[in-house]
């Protein structure tokens, strides 16, 4: 089926980007982070050693978790760790988003044709 061919192809591209290319991403702080670090000086381990900046107020993340910071906890190989976490993230995002969109999709209309006049009945039939 044509539609699914495109979806599968797109997913493969996303998996390749998150699973492999992600290892070649820049590890510098992004635009937001670097703006918040303005005014502080950092040592080689990225710890603040002087100055004053918004980033000093940063607090621990509530959850963390085994995939925190786009890695797999306990996996020493950086390449595998980043790549696998990316693959899991792509699959999880597709499952959550695709699943949710599929559940709430519109089902009250026959397959679309160009001729129809008023077909959309605003009376929402929830559930079902």
């Amino acid at each position, binding site marked *: 089926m044509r539609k699914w061919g495109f979806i599968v192809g797109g997913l493969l591209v996303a998996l390749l980007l998150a699973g492999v290319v992600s290892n070649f991403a820049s590890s510098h702080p992004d635009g937001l982070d670097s703006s*918040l670090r303005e005014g502080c000086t950092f040592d080689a381990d990225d710890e603040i050693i002087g100055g004053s900046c*918004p980033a000093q*107020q940063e607090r621990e993340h509530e959850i963390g978790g085994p995939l925190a910071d*786009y890695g797999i906890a306990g996996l020493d190989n950086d390449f595998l760790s980043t790549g696998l976490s990316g693959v899991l993230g792509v699959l999880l995002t*597709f499952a959550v*988003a695709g699943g949710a*969109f599929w559940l709430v999709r519109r089902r009250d209309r026959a397959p679309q044709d160009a001729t129809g006049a008023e077909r959309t009945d605003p009376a929402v039939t929830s559930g079902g």
Partner: protein
Amino acid sequence: MEALAMHISNGIINGPVAAVFAVIALAAMAYCVMRGRQDLDDRLAPMAGLVAAFIFAVQMLNFPIFTAGVSGHLLGGALAAMLVGPWVGALCVAVVLVVQALVFGDGGVAMLGLNITNMAVIGIAVAYLLIAVLLRVLPRTPAGLAVTAFVSALVSVVVAAMGFVLQYQLGGTTDLGGNLAGLAGTMAVSHLFIGIGEGLITATTVVTVAKVRPDLVYALRALKPAAPVTVPTVGGVR
């Protein structure tokens, strides 16, 4: 190693302001579900899942920008708005942010409302307004589509960054002496360059999809050229 944090972390904006934006974001997303349901059919639903997954993937790809030591990554608003429309597009970006906050420790959970407001609400709104205007005035060619994608992506990123500056003005946890010009300046300049990267990625992706499956590009379906000639438009005013 925390260099991969990409979104607003805990502690940067105070709790009350974060809570207010959580309510704003929740309301906005609820509205998007309402409006988006009209767009979501058997064809759009899997495509929207793919768009969310693709945005997650590309957000991992930090690219270096102008100055040494600063990177940027896709926000995805213009891309999502182009491919699946503003309502579903905003939901796609929001799902990515929720997954990142809950599973990847990226962006505080308490800060989700702030991040969603900037990237899913402001970013998408600005992008789609520009898309709606540009697609109608520019020629219906791959070049016209590319320019639309590039400009809407670039501008939406800079405006979304200013959303953060506004939030920082309201509830920033470091006293910048009442002077946000410095923060606004670094955010604007860095996101101008990030916006160029975002524009290139968005234009490349949208033009590629339009070449392979033009019927899957929401903006091309929904936004007819300026002068509709024979086809009578049926309902569905957007």
